[in-house]
């Protein structure tokens, strides 16, 4: 029941928001996101005591054996928590911005939240597919309506790319569906393991391409830097913080358990692609002078590591990925909040035009440094535990893969610290000397992020416990 509520709150609020005027949309969005967070926390408690109460199955299309089946396991729970926190933080940060056609903006944001929760909670393959596509549509409109100058072609590319990927997945879903004896889309039927290894080997690619485009993994990443750069920053936060997790989530929930032999057969190829992505994106990030593009490439590198660790597929690597799903979301949203703050004040994205902000806005500087250090996975920040587990898992799989992927850490330090230095240290120029420090709402949002960063870095056990059920489950079927 709570699971359905998690989908319904943003959905209904989003639809109402379209009809509101003035400051109504802003207020309703904030209220809805607070309500979502409250329900998520309630669901979290219920998950501790009676996890089966979060499952709900209702009839949808009986002729097809498709059901409206939603539920939350540890991973789904965690991602819902991430979604709820992220949307609340985003709405807090943009509270003093005034968007044109605010009702549509906030309405679409809330609809995308509903779509994302749907993806994370669907336990029916067809339902999953429907939500998977639906999450894309509001984001497409958000980017195209409020984005930068080149937004239309860029978002279009993003849309067609992901649409093509998901259609391939649809073919895969249909094929599996027809192989099943009871002709059902339920998760249990999909994971019952009736597919021959030969089928799995080509079905793997239909699914992998769909997920790889979303993550994105090299060489399917080309939509991503442009889209991140052109999107309005709140939407970029949704895209990079939560939506890319759909790809990783898809692999863990729908690829590994459904096509275990396929994943086993192609794991090396997938890992090699991921690792190429890490090194490639890191190198490009080093030479970027555009603030947003740098973070976009840094995100590709981080996601690449997670993808490699998924396919290394031992308990440690999976645990690392799961916890990193959450932490990467928090860190990258923190970075985007800083970008949004600087961009809103100074209207520049080029880092060469920035510098010396620390003198004029020390709070911004402090937060940027902390979040950047979390981004390079310094011990005692939240990034460390996940990366450590992933590297350890990758090490068990193949030492050389780990060694090459490990270069990513060094490169990450290079571009991240370089960015910090260019943006906040050095000589201030006439532009940056006008920087004003954080306002109350921004301070609040960033404080929450820093608290999470440090709390998760020092004591990650609760989160590891939360996702442990998923790791065990995946390892069992594999």
């Amino acid at each position: 029941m709570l699971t359905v509520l998690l989908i319904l709150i943003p959905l209904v609020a989003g639809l109402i928001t379209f009809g509101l005027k003035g400051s109504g949309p802003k207020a309703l969005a904030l209220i809805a996101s607070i309500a979502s967070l409250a329900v998520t926390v309630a669901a979290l408690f219920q998950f501790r005591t009676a996890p089966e109460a979060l499952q709900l199955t209702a009839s949808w299309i009986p002729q097809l054996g498709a059901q409206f089946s939603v539920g939350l396991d540890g991973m789904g729970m965690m991602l819902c928590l991430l979604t709820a926190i992220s949307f609340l933080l985003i709405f807090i940060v943009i509270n003093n911005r005034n968007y044109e056609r605010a009702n549509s903006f906030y309405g679409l944001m809330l609809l995308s939240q509903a779509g994302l929760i749907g993806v994370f909670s669907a336990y029916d393959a067809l339902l999953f597919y429907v939500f998977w596509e639906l999450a894309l549509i509001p984001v497409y409109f958000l980017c195209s309506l409020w984005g930068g100058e080149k937004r239309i072609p860029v978002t279009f590319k993003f849309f067609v790319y992901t649409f093509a990927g998901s259609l391939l997945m649809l073919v895969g879903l249909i094929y599996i569906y027809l192989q099943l004896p009871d002709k059902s889309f339920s998760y249990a039927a999909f994971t019952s393991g009736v597919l021959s290894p030969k089928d799995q080997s080509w079905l793997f690619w239909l699914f992998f391409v769909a997920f790889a485009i979303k993550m994105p993994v090299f060489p399917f990443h080309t939509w991503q830097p442009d889209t991140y750069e052109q999107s309005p920053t709140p939407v970029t936060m949704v895209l990079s913080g939560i939506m890319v997790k759909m790809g990783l989530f898809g692999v863990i929930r729908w690829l590994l358990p459904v096509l275990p032999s396929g994943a086993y057969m192609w794991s090396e190829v997938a890992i090699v692609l991921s690792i190429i992505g890490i090194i490639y994106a890191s190198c490009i990030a080093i030479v970027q002078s555009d603030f947003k593009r740098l973070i976009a490439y840094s995100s590709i590198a981080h996601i690449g590591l997670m993808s490699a660790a998924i396919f290394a597929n031992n308990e440690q690597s999976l645990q690392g990925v799961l916890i990193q799903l959450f932490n990467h979301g928090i860190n990258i949203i923190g970075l985007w909040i800083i970008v949004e703050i600087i961009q809103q004040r100074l209207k520049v994205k080029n880092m060469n035009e920035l510098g010396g902000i620390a003198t004029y806005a020390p709070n911004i500087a402090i937060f940027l440094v902390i979040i950047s250090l979390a981004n390079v996975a310094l011990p005692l920040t939240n990034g460390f535990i996940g990366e450590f587990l992933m590297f350890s898992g990758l090490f068990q799989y193949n030492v050389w893969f780990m060694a090459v992927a490990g270069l990513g850490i060094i490169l990450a330090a290079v571009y991240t610290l370089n960015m910090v230095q260019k943006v906040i240290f050095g000589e201030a120029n006439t532009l940056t000397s006008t920087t004003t420090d954080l306002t109350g709402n921004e301070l609040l949002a960033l404080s929450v992020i820093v608290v999470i960063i440090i709390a998760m870095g020092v004591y990650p056990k609760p989160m590891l416990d939360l996702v442990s059920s998923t790791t065990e489950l995946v390892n069992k079927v594999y």
Partner: protein
Amino acid sequence: MNALISTALAGVVMMFAGLFIRNKQHIKFVAIAALLIVSVANLAELSTIEGGSRTVLGMVTVSHFSILFNAIAFGATLIYFLLSGSAFEKVGEHVADYFALVFFILSGITLASSFSNLLMLFLAIEIISIPQYILAGSNKRTPKSSEASLKYFLMGSFSTGILLMGITLIYGAAGTFNIEELGLGNGDINPLALCGIILLAFALSFKVSAAPFHFWTPDVYDGSPTVFTSFMATVVKAGSFIAFIRIFHGAFTGTNISAHWQLLLSLVTAATLLIGNFTAVFQQSVKRMLAYSSIAQAGFMLFAVISMNKYATQGIILYAAAYSVATIGVFAVTMKLKDYTFDGFNGLARTQPVLAVTTAIFVCSLAGIPLTAGFFAKYFVLTAAVQQGNLLWLVVLAVLCAAISAYYYFRVIIAMYFKQGEPATKEEITGGFKVMLVITAAIVILLGVFPGLLLNLI
């Protein structure tokens, strides 16, 4: 039978209505009333067949399926009358005659959904085609319309000739016109029959504008008055598909012979998908884009022809409904605008938000986005093809083409929502029109969320 007789009668009534009713508005109301009566008569027959089917004189078999398909065709036509009926008046003087011709086409469609004899197939195709030739040329003020009519007539009669040739060869091989008694392909293949089937496949491919027999489509659709293009590209096309499916699934399913035409038609499908989608990308006019998109969509509907299973039958019903309703909707909006190019849609979201939202829903349905009827339509035909087994290459090609189709469908959305402009409308947009559009969009979404509503009936 009810549907066949009542549509023919309704056509005659409409012709006379033109003599007695001077007010063009009233003629439209008479047509809508006649269509409602026809729909009721059609559904009334459902109770008399009791799950089975009834054959009349060995010529026409009325079944559950045919009544359901007729109901969908009539429903789509009703939406068409309500949305675009007033545009009939702008084409020319003989409004009642145009409505009469539409009813005759419907009469042909009901025959197409229920023939059980090759001669009736021929009649069905002819009854569908001949009124279209007239409708295509009905706008006498532009030479483009006459050109469209002439082109369509010449090409159409040529293909009808091929159809007749095919039927003759099949008769020569089987010695009967009755579809159930043909019995082809279970033993040795008779080369005469095979030739006949291939000719039949070609002729019907022409009627449904499948590549490489599609060359007439863009010119005819572009040249005809838009209001009739809207009907030809939707209900009529669906009607031709039903004829296609019924003859091929009804008579040529023998294992020895089906492999031959399946291969042929899968190549036709591949060509249709590629040509339709790639050409649509380059169109600047929404009307022409819809013409090519109708070719591309025909490619998807062909999946239902080449895969012989229950998903195919369900798929064609859903596809016919989803595609017809959405396309009629887009055409209805297009007709209200002065400029039929993509630029003509620029900024529609600001000036006419209702039109923009509903058009967006229609094109999403055409692109096959989930929660619209188009998604499940595509889903079913693709499932049918995957089930068929050896067509997986075609399915992958089709979904890639569907991604391409998102490109040109979304150009409409981009123009309406993301570009600035002051789209000029030809006339005041009435509240009634908006209400109808919203209802139509609601149907599209309802079928997208609960396709079971329609599937339950099959």
